């Protein structure tokens, strides 16, 4: 990809003014100046990338194997758990459908939604689902609902990059979008045999 970009530059016959080494800095400066004056808390958070965000951006979400493994290992070590891994699927349903939270015009202090349907199919009657992530229709039916399955689902929602470095899925627990208790409700939505997802 980098080579392709370089070839494009050469074919246009113009040499850039910014050296390769300064490019990252110039882009960061452009980002900060372009969002200056926006919501201060969001500006503080987006203006500085964490190390995982920085590495994934740098590698266009395809990190080399050793780096991918290091990201997955360190991210897994940071997972925190609630008292119970599985909650109430009806609560989970509400969280999955709720697309609000953490945009600059959302009410601060209210619980955030997970907006799961943006990317995943879940309950069979909801047809307005996205396809960025895999379908989770009848998820628990094929995987069972034991403690091992609960832990797998919990970890995956808490921090998807503990499994797939630079995954497109937000690190909902790690980044504080959802609380451990909210994630446990989503575990129930996916695994509880009485959940609408598994009907």
């Amino acid at each position, binding site marked *: 990809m980098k080579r392709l*970009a370089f070839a*494009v*530059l050469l074919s*246009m*016959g*113009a*040499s*850039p*003014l*910014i050296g390769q080494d300064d*490019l*990252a800095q*110039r*882009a960061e400066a*452009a*980002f900060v*100046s*372009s*969002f*200056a*004056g*926006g*919501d201060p808390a*969001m*500006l503080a*958070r*987006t*203006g500085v*990338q964490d190390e*995982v*965000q920085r590495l*994934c*951006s740098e590698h*266009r*979400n395809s990190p080399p194997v050793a780096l991918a493994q290091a990201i997955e290992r360190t991210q897994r070590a940071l997972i925190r758990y609630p008292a119970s891994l599985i909650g109430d699927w009806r609560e989970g349903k509400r969280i999955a459908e709720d697309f609000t939270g*953490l*945009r*600059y*015009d959302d009410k601060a202090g209210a619980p955030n939604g997970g907006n799961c*349907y*943006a*990317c995943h*199919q879940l309950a*069979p009657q909801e*047809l*307005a*689902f*996205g*396809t*960025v992530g895999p379908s989770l229709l009848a998820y628990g*039916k094929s995987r069972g609902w034991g403690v091992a399955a609960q832990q797998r689902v919990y970890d995956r929602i808490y921090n998807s990059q503990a499994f797939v470095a630079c995954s*497109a899925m*937000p*690190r909902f627990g790690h*980044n*504080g*979008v959802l609380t451990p208790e909210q994630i446990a409700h989503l575990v129930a939505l996916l695994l509880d045999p009485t959940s609408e997802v598994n009907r």
Partner: protein
Amino acid sequence: MRWLLLLCVVPALAAADEGLESTVRQYREALRDASPGELWVVTGEELFRTPRGPKNASLEACDFGLGPGVVKGAYAQLPRYFADTDRVEDLESRLMSCMRQLQGFGEEAFPRHARGDRRMLDFERLAAYVAAQSNGMPLAAPLAHPKEVDAQRIGERLFYRRAGTHDFSCATCHTLQGKRIRLQRLAQLTDPKEAQGVFPSWPAYRVAAGEVHTLQDWIAICYWAARHPQLRYGSEASVALQVFMARYANGGVISAPGVKR
């Protein structure tokens, strides 16, 4: 039994899915012959020709890159480098430059952010008018001046830059092939065929909003959904991202204002 059920359910879902997609498509087709966006073109031209501002001048002498007063075909060669401001400008930042230079407007005339600012109404109209004067022409943003090359490289880095509570970048959604967010089809902006189809139909009438939105507005809305702060109107990122997108969209035929969901 479970397998049998699955066999029945999957085609039914696929059919429902296709039904929803085609409804949106039909709606777009029906609107194409009489785009509500035409209203913005007409009122935009009137605004363009009206003397305004402290200097009581119209925008008719504005140089969009093809010389003062040349509007026809100008949008097809934007964004580009402008010597008088010594920077790369897209249509909207060029409109701002001409409003400063020709009409004497100060910063208070310009929206601070593209979203939710009444001052955007003028820009939506002016942008719709100027863009429509390139309809039928292929996009040919020059991408040749060293500053244009730099803007494209900065735009590329910003496109892949993940940040915020949701770890999102533009690339999270817009490098995927044939995917949807809910029912909204995502454009793969790094695929020339898709970029050429999507990019040159901005500014566009958005059915959900009931009004014409500009490219900068569209980018700002993306950042809002991606849990980023308010994008400043006319900012470097707004322009650099367009230069990066133009690299893939060049060759696509301008048809503005388009109709989008």
